[in-house]
């Protein structure tokens, strides 16, 4: 039982990163109709900016984080304003264009900072003690790492639900034309959504080195990105809570599978990654727009 709790908690840590990436993806998708694979590159840009400020320029953590967030917001806006505005509505090619951007940006980071991981890690001031809850000893670091994404995604959801800006974003997500009719500046809302999506991605990028205890590298987000997208698609690309839940669920399922799969099965090529892609195919067959997604209804 103690094992199970520990495995689920680790699943929540990975799942939290998936949820952050998935939430940014869904926000951007709902508002601008672009599936943003470049989310992974934005995450890497965030991690590298923060690392560089901290380790190469001796900036304290909080200003470094603030600077990274502002920079990412601008980068997201620029991507939408210059490149992706032209693609609005062209679902199929937006996937490919952002995939191309992902490759280019990751390559750019590789050229700027080198491909081999830097000696000094991107370290966050995390507690390293144990938290005793009854008979379970839980790692405080994992608890904090699991809590940060939950807070961020929760704040986003509350903001969307209860603030005026949130209401305009939801209006654009429902119908861009209708929103324009009631006087909402749709282009600005899209810019903002891209900016916020980029910040969420950056948060994921900054958490990844601590969650996986590996050094930063240009392609470090890629494995997370695929699972996050799978989670978002399983949850439903047009439902933000659905996508976030999909991300967390997937993290837990992956961890449970890799912990409890007997080795004979693993030798057959069935591991945590195979299970999630099989799950993805199964869910899409049953519900083509994801579990929480709105089924497509069209009139002739």
């Amino acid at each position, binding site marked *: 039982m103690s094992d199970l709790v520990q495995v689920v908690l680790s699943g929540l840590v990975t799942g939290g990163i998936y949820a952050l990436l998935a939430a940014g993806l869904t926000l951007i*998708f709902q508002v601008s109709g672009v*599936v943003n694979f470049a989310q992974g590159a934005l995450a890497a840009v965030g991690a590298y900016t923060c690392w560089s400020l901290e380790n190469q320029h001796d900036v304290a953590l909080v200003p470094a984080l603030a600077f990274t967030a502002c920079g990412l917001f601008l980068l997201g806006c620029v991507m939408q304003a210059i*490149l992706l505005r*032209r*693609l609005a509505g062209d*679902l*199929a*090619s*937006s*996937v*490919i*264009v952002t*995939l*191309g*951007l*992902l*490759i*280019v940006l990751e*390559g*750019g980071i*590789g050229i700027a900072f080198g*491909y081999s991981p830097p000696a000094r890690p991107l370290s966050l001031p995390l507690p390293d003690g144990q938290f005793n809850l009854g008979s379970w000893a839980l790692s405080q670091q994992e608890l904090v790492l699991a809590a940060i994404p939950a807070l961020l995604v929760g704040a986003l959801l509350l903001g969307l639900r209860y603030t005026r800006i949130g209401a305009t974003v939801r209006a654009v997500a429902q119908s861009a034309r209708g929103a324009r009719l009631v006087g909402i500046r749709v282009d600005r809302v899209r810019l903002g959504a891209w900016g916020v999506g980029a910040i969420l991605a950056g948060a994921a990028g900054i958490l990844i080195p601590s969650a996986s205890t590996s050094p930063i590298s240009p392609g470090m987000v*890629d494995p997370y990105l*695929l699972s996050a*997208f*799978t989670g978002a*698609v399983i949850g439903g*690309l047009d439902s933000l809570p659905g996508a976030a839940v999909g991300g967390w669920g997937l993290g837990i399922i992956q961890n449970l599978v890799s912990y409890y799969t007997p080795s004979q099965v*693993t*030798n*057959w*090529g*069935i*591991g945590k*990654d*195979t299970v999630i*892609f*099989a799950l*993805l*195919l199964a869910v*899409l*067959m049953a519900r*083509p*727009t*994801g579990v929480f997604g709105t089924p*497509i209804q069209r009139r*002739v």
Partner: protein
Amino acid sequence: MKRAKNPWAWFRRCPWLLPALAALVTLACLPLISTTSFAVGFLDPAGTYAILALGLNLLIGGTGQFSLGHAGFFAIGAFTAGILSTNYGWPFWVVIPVAGVVAGLFGAALGLPTLRLIGPYFSMATLGFGLLTAEVLGAASWAGGRTGITLNYPQLGAYTFDEVSFFWVILGVAAVTLFLVWNLRHGATGRAFVALRESDFAARACGIHLARYRVLAFTISAVLAGIAGSLFANWNGFLDASESATSSTFGLPASVAFVAMVVVGGLDSTLGSILGAVFITAVQYWLQDRPELAEMLYGASIVIVLLGAKGGLAGLPAMVYTAWRNLRARGTGEARA
């Protein structure tokens, strides 16, 4: 009274025949002057990927569905060929069509359930399939496991092909594929694909069977990817699927490169598929010491083509011509739309 037979009638009917033959003969001479490293690095992959891109362009350009999983079919073809020829000793000319059929069966099996999916959902489902295939083949012991599969040089009678002379086989398969795909695309089937891409409602109102044609396009592209995979197995001589989800032969990077070939060559252009395959392979060969730069270059070319010049390489002459004409028109003071 019988009209005198025009000896050039065949030329009128097929004006492309002479240039095509000339191109074929020119290409067939290439192995005579090629070194092994040039054949392995450029000639063989360019031919192999041209076959794959021809099929993939029917799916992506024709029906407008972006598949991110065709490296999976490529891997299925390659491992079918590898297992059949090493474990069972089948000759390569039997193995190649069989690999196509096996990949085609998987294609039909995946094409049916993904029929209802649109845009990003379709891309994600195919991506999942591709990674699933790569993971299973990379870990499964019957597919060579961590040691991989080593193939013998393909033999025809007493003759043994090497990396250079196998290009003739690839060229033959590619020529036949080009002929078939060209006819398919410019016949009723190809028009049905395009009708479905432009508006599936209108197409269905005209009596085009949506499910049948979508699955057909998917299956054809899978068959050609499988055939390309089996050719790859034969000239590469070694199949290694460990770490394959991230490998540039069978993993996601390969699927992205395949899409790049189609997009850069020119969506829905038959000759463009070949141009794209040659272009991407040339980039990879030219930058083989800096694979990350090669990847960046074709990532950038996808973005540029999809955002700026949708015709790709095949549409380049028309684009240059239009630009030149507009420029000249401006010079003479004529306004043009």
